C-alpha cells in the first residue's frame, strides 16, 4: 500500500476493527427508524408502487408485475445487470484462461471425464429435461417467477453436467468416442454471451430506429396493441439475457476447468481418456 508499510499496520488494524462495529451500530440505529417491513403506509408502498401494481398489466402486457418492472419500467437496469454478468465472464477469461496464453494446470477431476454406465445413462436422461425446463422457465417468466436469468443458469447447469461426465466439449468432440458432443465449446459459449448483450441492446436500438427512446419497446412495429408489443419485446430481451447468462456460465466453468491455449482454442487436457 503506502510507504509507511510497517508503522501503519497496527493503525490500520485498529481502524478496521473499529469500522465493523461502527457500521453495525449505524445500520441498527438507522433501521430502527425505517418503516415497518411490509407497512402498507410506508413511502416505498405508496409512492411509485401503486402504478406498478395497478397499471403494469395494462401498460406492459406482463402478467407478472416483477417482470414488468425488471424488464420494462427498469429494463435499462436489467441491461446493466446483464452486462455485469457478461463482465464477470470476460474477466474470468482474461485473468484465468488467457493469461499470456499459458495453459492452466488442469484441475484434477474437472478436465477429465469420469463416470460409469450408471452415471452416463442418468446424464443422458437428465440433461434433456434440465435443458427443456430451462427454456420453460424462460418463456413462462411472464406469468410466474422465472425469466432469462433463472433459465440461463438452469441451461448452464445442464451444460456443466455434460462436461463433468463426458469431459469438456471442444471442436472435435469429447474425450468419449462414443458420445457426440452437445453444447458449445468455450469459444461457442463466449459467442453466446456476446450475442445476448448484442440482442438486448439491439432491441433497444431498434426501438430508437422507430422513433422511440432507447429500450422503448412500444414503438416497435410488431402489432397494433402497444401492451402486446411490449410483451413480445420483453420475451425478446429475456431470451437475450438467457443467452448471456447461459454463455457466461459455460465460460466460467470452462475457464476454471480447462484454460485456453495459444491458438485461443480450448483443447482440454493433454491426456486422452482414462479408461
Amino acid at each position: 500500500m503506502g510507504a509507511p508499510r510497517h508503522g501503519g499496520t497496527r493503525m490500520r488494524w485498529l481502524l478496521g476493527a473499529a469500522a465493523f462495529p461502527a457500521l453495525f451500530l449505524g445500520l441498527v440505529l438507522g433501521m430502527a427508524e425505517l418503516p415497518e417491513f411490509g407497512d402498507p403506509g410506508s413511502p416505498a408502498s405508496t409512492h411509485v408502487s401503486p402504478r406498478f401494481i395497478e397499471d403494469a398489466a395494462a401498460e406492459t402486457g406482463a402478467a407478472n408485475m416483477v417482470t414488468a418492472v425488471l424488464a420494462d419500467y427498469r429494463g435499462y437496469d436489467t441491461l446493466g445487470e446483464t452486462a455485469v454478468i457478461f463482465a464477470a465472464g470476460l474477466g474470468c477469461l482474461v485473468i484465468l484462461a488467457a493469461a499470456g496464453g499459458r495453459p492452466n494446470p488442469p484441475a484434477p477431476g474437472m478436465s477429465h471425464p469420469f463416470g460409469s454406465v450408471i452415471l452416463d445413462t442418468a446424464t443422458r436422461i437428465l440433461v434433456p429435461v434440465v435443458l427443456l425446463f430451462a427454456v420453460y422457465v424462460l418463456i413462462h417468466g411472464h406469468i410466474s417467477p422465472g425469466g432469462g436469468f433463472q433459465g440461463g443458469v438452469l441451461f448452464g447447469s445442464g451444460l456443466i453436467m455434460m462436461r463433468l461426465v463426458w469431459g469438456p466439449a471442444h471442436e472435435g468432440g469429447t474425450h468419449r468416442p462414443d458420445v457426440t458432443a452437445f453444447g458449445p465449446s468455450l469459444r461457442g459459449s463466449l459467442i453466446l454471451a456476446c450475442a445476448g448483450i448484442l440482442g438486448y441492446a439491439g432491441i433497444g436500438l431498434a426501438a430508437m430506429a422507430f422513433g422511440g427512446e432507447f429500450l422503448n419497446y412500444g414503438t416497435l412495429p410488431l402489432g397494433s396493441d402497444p401492451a402486446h408489443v411490449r410483451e413480445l419485446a420483453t420475451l425478446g430481451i429475456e431470451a437475450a439475457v438467457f443467452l448471456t447468462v447461459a454463455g457466461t456460465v459455460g465460460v466460467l466453468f470452462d475457464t476454471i476447468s480447462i484454460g485456453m491455449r495459444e491458438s485461443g482454442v480450448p483443447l482440454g487436457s493433454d491426456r486422452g481418456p482414462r479408461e
Partner: protein
Amino acid sequence: MRDVLPGLLVALPLVGAALVPLLAALFRRTTRAAALALHAAIFAAALGLFWSAAVAGPIRYAVGGWPGPWGIELWFDGLSTLIAVLVAGMACFASFAQTFGPDPDRTAPGSTPLREGLLRGALLLLVGGLLGIVATRDVFNLFVFLEISSLAAYTLVASGGGRSTVAAFRYLLAGTAAGSLYLFGVGFLYALTGTLNMDDLAARLPSVEADAALTVAVVLIAVGLSIKAALFPLHGWLPDTYVYTPTPAAGFIAAVMAKVSAYALLRLLGEVLAGTDAGAVVLEIMIWLGVAGVVAGGVLAVAQRAVTRMLAWSSISAMGMILIGVGMGSALAITGALFHMAAHALAKGCLFFGAGGIRALEDGDEVDRWAGLGSRAPWTLAALTVAGLSMIGIPPTAGFFSKYYLLSASITAGGPAGIAAFAAIILSSLLATVYFLRVLEAAWFRAPAEAERASSAAPAGPVLPRPLALPVVGLALLIVLTGIFARPFERHVLPDWETGTARIAAEAP
C-alpha cells in the same frame, strides 16, 4: 439529434463491449479498427451532447419511454456532458494505446487476437460503466453502472498477470465494500422516500422526519463513493492499482476512474443530499479530509523512488484537491473541482502513458532510468514536461487555472477550512515542484549512467512506440489548449450548476 444522442451514448459502449470480443472470437483477427471506430463514435456522441447542452440547455431523457420516478432518467447538463467528453476522449487515447501490443507492456508472451479482443471489450465495458454513471439520474442505476465499471476495471488491472493480479484483488475488495456501502445507503433512501430518482429524492427528502436513518444513509453513500474516489484515508487501493496496471489501461484508469466517482459524490452530496443536515456536515468533513489527502499525497509522492508510484501518490493529492472543491460547494469551488478533474485527467493520462512506456522499454521504473532521455526523445519528453508543469500549476497549462479557481474559492470561503485548504494547495504545488523537477532534471540534464552507456546498444531515436507517443503528445497539446480556453469553459459549465442547485432549492417546500 437531442432525441438520439443520449441513447447512443449509453448504448454504444455496451454494444461495442460485446461486438469486439464477438468479432475476435469469430474471425480470430485483430479488432483494432473496430474498437477505434466505436470509441470515436462514442466520443462524437459525447461531443454532440456537450454542444447540444451548451446551446439548447440540459436534456432529460426517459429510457424506455417511462418518465421518472417510475422509469430511469438520464440527465445531460454542462457538468455531466463535460465529464462524458473527458471519459470518451481519454478512452480514444487508451484504445489507441492498446495497439501498443495486445498484451500490456509486452511482458506476457503468446497473446492472441482473441485475448486482444477481450481486453478491448473490457475497455469498452469500462467506458460504458463510467458513462452510465455520468449520465444517470437514478441512484440505483448509478450502482448498476458502478458495478460494470468496477468489474471491467478489475479485469484490465489484472490483465498484466503476476503482481497486477494481487493489486486487482485488493482493488476488488475495496471496490466491493464501497459498492455495498453505497447500496445500503440507497436502500435506506428508498425506504425513507419511496423513490430512486434524484430530482424526486431531492424534492421528497425535506419531508423525511427520520433523522438518524437519513444520517446513516448519507454517511453510507458518502463513505462508499469516497472509497471509489480515493479520498484520504480511504485511498489504500490506489497506489498498487495504478502502478501494476498494464500501461494502456493505466493511462485511462488513472485519468478518469476515481474522477467519475468524485463526480457522483458531487451529484449526490453536493446537489441531491446537500439540503440535509448530515449532508452539510459530511461536506465539511470532506474538506478537511481533502486537505489531509492533499498534503499526505504530496509528501509521500516526494518519498517515492519509482516514477509510476510517485505519480500514483500525486493522484491521491489531486483527488483531495477535487474533493475540497466538492466539499466547499460554492460555484467557484465546483468550477475548480471540475476543471481540476479535466486538467488532472489530461496530465495524469499523459504521464502514465509516458512513464509506463518508459518503464517497459527501459526495464525499470526508478528516476535514474530517465537519465538522458531528453536528448534521445526530445518531443516525447517535452510533452511529458508540459504535463508535469500542469501538475505543478505553471500558468499557460490547464493545471494553473484549476488551482487558481480552487485557491480563489478557498479565500472566498474563509474560515479555518478555507485557510487550511489554501495552505494545503500551495504546499502541494511546492511538493509537486520537488518531485516533478527531480524527474525532469534527470531526463533533460543528466547523462545516462556509465554502465548503461557501455551495455546499451541503446537505440537512439524515440523511446516510446507510436501507440504511446501519440497519446502523450496529443494530451500535452490538449493541456495547453484547455489552459488557454479556461474562460469559455467557466462560462459554459457554471450557469448549469447554479441553475441546477437553485432549482432543487426552489422545489424544496
